[in-house]
């Protein structure tokens, strides 16, 4: 529920302090003024941010907890209107600002997923289950490579022609195929990599497909076998990126991070098996004791995150 508080008129500095006190006592002690839009003498608008804490755990760290303080600026605004002898402070409802904050937090995790796909797509396709998930796409690309032109009817997908049409449309959208006279031919992206041969060609193509359409593949085609690998890698790289260094995790710690990020508690043996596959795909380093990120991938991931934050 929105509410209005009234505060006495004083100096502009008094107003800042009064607004700060209002938001901290009525909305939460960790809220702060992130920006003040200078209004006229009758109105002012304050952008409000919120800080929160996260504990970063590292399997090797002993006796020294690490706390990360995160800020989210400009989550909501507070309107100040001058009345006869007071200022009216219009506060939004806690429910609304909480939802907006959680959305911003989720956006950060989603940005991290995107950065991982950008930097590790060529490694993801080396995971056997991911490769299987992408096999309908390989089939289509192989067909168009040998036949030069195909139609939906040429693709015999086990889930029917509607599904085949979806794959063809998807590949057209990301420029791997091009529609010509009711059929599909090689698109610009396919032609760009066609000098490569055999497995190399298909690895490049699959990596590009993954990069261009992970969200789409996951959501639209329900290729859910991709999801656990994406989530596990993000559950490792996201906190490591926040920490600023590759964390050393064990399976239980990685599971805890995944629970924190995605709310799902995974079977530990399943997780260990998937970590093994990801080690072979060089998403994780071949460290015997800990689950540790690949150093090159981590450096590239950090660059991608930095770029996405400044974009």
């Amino acid at each position, binding site marked *: 529920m929105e509410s209005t508080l009234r505060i006495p008129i004083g100096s502009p500095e008094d107003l800042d302090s009064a607004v700060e006190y209002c938001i901290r006592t009525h*909305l939460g*002690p960790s809220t702060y003024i992130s920006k003040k839009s200078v209004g006229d003498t009758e109105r002012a608008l304050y952008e409000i941010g919120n800080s929160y*804490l996260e504990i970063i755990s590292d399997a090797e760290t002993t006796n*020294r*907890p690490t706390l990360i*303080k995160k800020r989210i600026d400009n989550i909501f605004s507070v309107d100040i209107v001058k009345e006869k002898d007071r200022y009216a402070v219009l506060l939004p409802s*806690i429910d609304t*600002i909480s939802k907006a904050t*959680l959305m911003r937090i989720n956006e950060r995790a989603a940005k991290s997923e995107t950065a991982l796909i950008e930097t590790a797509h060529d490694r993801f396709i080396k995971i056997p289950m991911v490769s299987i998930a992408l096999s309908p796409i390989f089939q289509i690309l192989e067909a168009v490579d040998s036949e030069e032109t195909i139609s939906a009817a040429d693709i015999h997908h086990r889930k029917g022609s509607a599904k085949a049409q979806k794959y063809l449309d998807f590949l057209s959208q990301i420029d791997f195929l091009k529609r010509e006279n009711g059929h599909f031919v090689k698109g610009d992206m396919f032609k760009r990599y066609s000098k490569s041969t055999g497995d190399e060609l298909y690895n490049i193509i699959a990596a590009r497909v993954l990069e261009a359409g992970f969200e789409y593949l996951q959501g639209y085609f329900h290729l859910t076998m991709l999801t656990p690998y994406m989530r596990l890698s993000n559950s490792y790289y996201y906190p490591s990126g926040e920490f600023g260094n590759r964390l050393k995790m064990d399976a239980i710690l990685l599971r805890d991070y995944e629970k924190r990020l995605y709310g799902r508690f995974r079977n530990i043996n399943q997780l260990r098996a998937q970590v093994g596959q990801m080690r072979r795909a060089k998403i994780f380093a071949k460290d015997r004791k800990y689950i540790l990120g690949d150093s090159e991938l981590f450096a590239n991931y950090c660059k991608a995150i930095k770029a996405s934050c400044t974009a």
Partner: protein
Amino acid sequence: MNDREYSRIVTGFTYDGRYLDDCFLVCIHNSLRNLSQRTGIGDFEVSQKEIRSAAHYKPVGYYNLDALIRYLDNIMGPYGYKSRIKSKPDMTLDELLRILSISNCSFPIISVGWNYFLLQNARLKPDSNDPIDHAIIVMEIDPTGQEITIFDPMEKQLCKSSNMSDFHRRLPLPKVIKHWERSVFSPRWCMWFEKRAEQRLLEV
């Protein structure tokens, strides 16, 4: 206060949850629980769920402390108790000692700045003094004025995260005061529940 007595008092105290964002509410709950046990007034034992609901708590760290105080004052009023909040310059070390010495006062809750966690040997990122506060309960100040015994609602989470075995419940008083002074909420912010003076006089 020896370790056994400390453990007896904090038995049944709650700790910060997943978001580490409700330390003020957790401290209020625990302080009231202890006051309930000391006074024998069962109504003071307000559940954590009820406290969250009265404060309109939502993640991450959103709650209306003002609404919660009004709610609690309604519960405590008939028994002559009231919530009290003071900060600098009205709040002083002497006042803190007074609160701790009176049996009709709850344990005081104080707000400390982010760098307080350095006293718990934590690594902080970033290390700047951005606006964020933490609430702890003051349980005792030793007669020499050198040491303060606290309850920190983040103790379990901090220990769990780092295999920390020696969480500091007793800290040097001057250092805690330094972080109390740097509370962003309001320097030297303190909250407690106390029986009103007129009520006490009537009893005498």
